[in-house]
């Protein structure tokens, strides 16, 4: 104490040390997590790819954080913090997931003081919105989503055969390689990097962190040329215990507006079905496929209205295919032609104009 009274300025050391401890402690904890590269037996890219096809997860529950920076000059929808299922393309979102076999799953999107849930229990599909106090119910057809298509890998194959088959299925279009092991959500994981061979794809690479024990992707990062992922989904916490069955049982609470809906939600605008317009078509395949559709009414760049004004501010492009306006983000490009078509794809604007000319 006498030291304090002789040199009062020394007292400031105490809060200084506390600040250093708080800041340093936090930084050190992060650094330890980041540098903690797990020691895993090596696995080739082909083996990892086969693991993905034979993933066996009976049940899980966890927390997923999704971030997107698509670089598209689009207006914000809703206000931030609102748990709206339409807002997944921008900013950061936290989801809680519960999964118990293909028939029972629940995803909850957490907002500030609000929550949206999608709950599947057998053939019942519920969508719940806490801020609107609305629940909608859909009945899935018998055997819904039971057929995942024919995987290139069959359980009867040997591991080596399976790996070769998985690689052969994608090798034409995609380069696949393994990268160093990482820890995601406190679990050891292998990294698999896949990148499209086609130069006109905006996707630089997709990086997967695959759980070493269960073969489940714990993190998916999509890079679009920048140093940070343009899109990322990762578990921040995961457990493989069977969730409480109560999680999948949804009874609309009293006071809830309950609607029965058709299986497929109607789009906010009509894509002009039957009015002589073509249905949306896909040109090309794989990484560089381009979706081509007719522009809905009121969205044409020369129309009026708020959206048209926004579109008019976009850069103009033209060529022997015609002319239009283009939006280009870090992962997607959209071309709105003056003759009323919209082309969308994870490709360069040049590729879109090529498709427009076909």
């Amino acid at each position, binding site marked *: 104490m006498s030291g304090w009274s002789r040199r009062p300025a020394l007292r400031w050391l105490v809060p200084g040390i506390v600040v250093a401890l*708080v800041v340093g402690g936090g930084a050190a904890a992060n650094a330890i997590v980041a540098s903690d590269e797990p020691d895993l037996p090596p696995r080739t890219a082909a083996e990892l790819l086969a693991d993905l096809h034979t993933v066996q997860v009976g049940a899980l529950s966890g927390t997923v954080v999704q971030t997107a920076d698509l670089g598209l000059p689009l207006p914000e929808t809703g206000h931030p913090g609102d748990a709206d299922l339409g807002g997944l393309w921008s900013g950061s979102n936290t989801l809680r997931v519960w999964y118990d076999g293909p028939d029972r799953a629940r995803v909850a999107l957490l907002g500030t003081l609000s929550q949206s849930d999608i709950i599947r229990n057998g053939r019942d599909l519920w969508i719940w919105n806490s801020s609107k106090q609305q629940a909608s119910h859909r009945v899935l057809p018998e055997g819904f989503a039971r057929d995942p298509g024919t995987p290139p890998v069959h359980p009867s194959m040997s591991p080596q055969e399976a790996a070769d088959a998985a690689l052969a299925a994608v090798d034409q279009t995609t380069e696949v390689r393994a990268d160093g092991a990482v820890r995601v959500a406190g679990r050891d994981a292998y990294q698999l990097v896949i990148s499209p061979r086609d130069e006109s794809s905006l996707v630089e690479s997709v990086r997967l962190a695959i759980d070493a024990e269960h073969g489940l992707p714990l993190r998916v990062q999509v890079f679009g040329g920048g140093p940070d992922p343009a899109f990322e989904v990762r578990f921040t916490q995961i457990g493989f215990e069977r969730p409480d069955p109560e999680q999948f049982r949804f009874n609309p*609470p009293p006071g809830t507006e309950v609607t029965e809906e058709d299986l497929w939600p109607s789009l906010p605008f009509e894509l002009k079905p039957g009015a002589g317009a073509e249905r949306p078509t896909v040109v090309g395949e794989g990484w560089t496929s381009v979706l081509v559709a007719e522009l809905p009414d009121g969205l044409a760049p020369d129309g009026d209205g708020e959206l048209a004004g926004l579109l008019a501010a976009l850069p103009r492009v033209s060529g022997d295919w015609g002319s239009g306006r283009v939006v280009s983000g870090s992962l997607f490009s959209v071309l709105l032609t003056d003759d009323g078509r919209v082309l969308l794809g994870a490709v360069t604007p040049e590729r879109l104009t090529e498709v427009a000319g076909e």
Partner: protein
Amino acid sequence: MSAAEVSAADLAVAARPPRPARAPSTRFLRSELRLIFGRRRNQAGLGVLAAVPLVIAVAVRIANPEPGTGEGPDFFSSITGNGFFVALAALTVSLPLFLPLAVATIAGDSIAGEANAGTLRYLLTVPVHRTRALLVKFAAIVTFAVTATLLVAGVGLLAGLALFGGGPVTLLSGVQVGFGDGLLRLLAVCGYLAIGLCALGALGLFVSTLTEQPIGATIAVVILTVTSFVLDSIPQLSWLHPYLLTHWWMSFGDLLREPVFLPDLRLGLLSAGAYAVVFWTAAWARFAGRDITS
């Protein structure tokens, strides 16, 4: 001058011959609390806080909107179904300004008020160690923060139950829990918010040691709070958000999910604890070393 009375009481204690070491007396804290809760202006402040849930409950009762229209701020649309939500709505509405303002008033007044009234030197003439004085001042701020939060929730609960009745509580997850479970969660919400306000109180205590103008200290704390809220709403500054004093306050909603979502609450408590320790020690460094001139 009530502050002087305390000093006189403590002087009387000091006049007695020194006694052997004993358990720390609560006399100083009790007199401090008497000061805080006895002052007219503080009572008026608490009255304003209590009025928030009353206004909400009466307004919703009169307007009588259709339940579940999703109109109005958070929790408002649930009120007509269950009076329980008046408490939550009142806490949500009070959180950005009224509650921080109340705590900032008390915290800003704690040291600067005594300095301004000229009673600080009397307080420190009696054998009250400056560290103890700061501890007691902070304990009084904590008591006030807890009281203020419970007052808003309690009045809201009573008004809500009187006007709309109670019943099972619908959580954000769309699950209903019993009223008792709901009350426990409300209590946890109050505790969580009070801890956040205590961190603000520590900041106020520090600012209060810097000046002799209590109103200046209060305004400074309110400005810092509002600035924190404003910065927190700018998406371009998202890297800064986790470090803001107020960022985790709204995470109290995670207590209303089933099961309770802990990660953000944990970070909120850590953040509040860090702010409280940093600013209390800063207040100590400033206060214990400074010359008392008034």
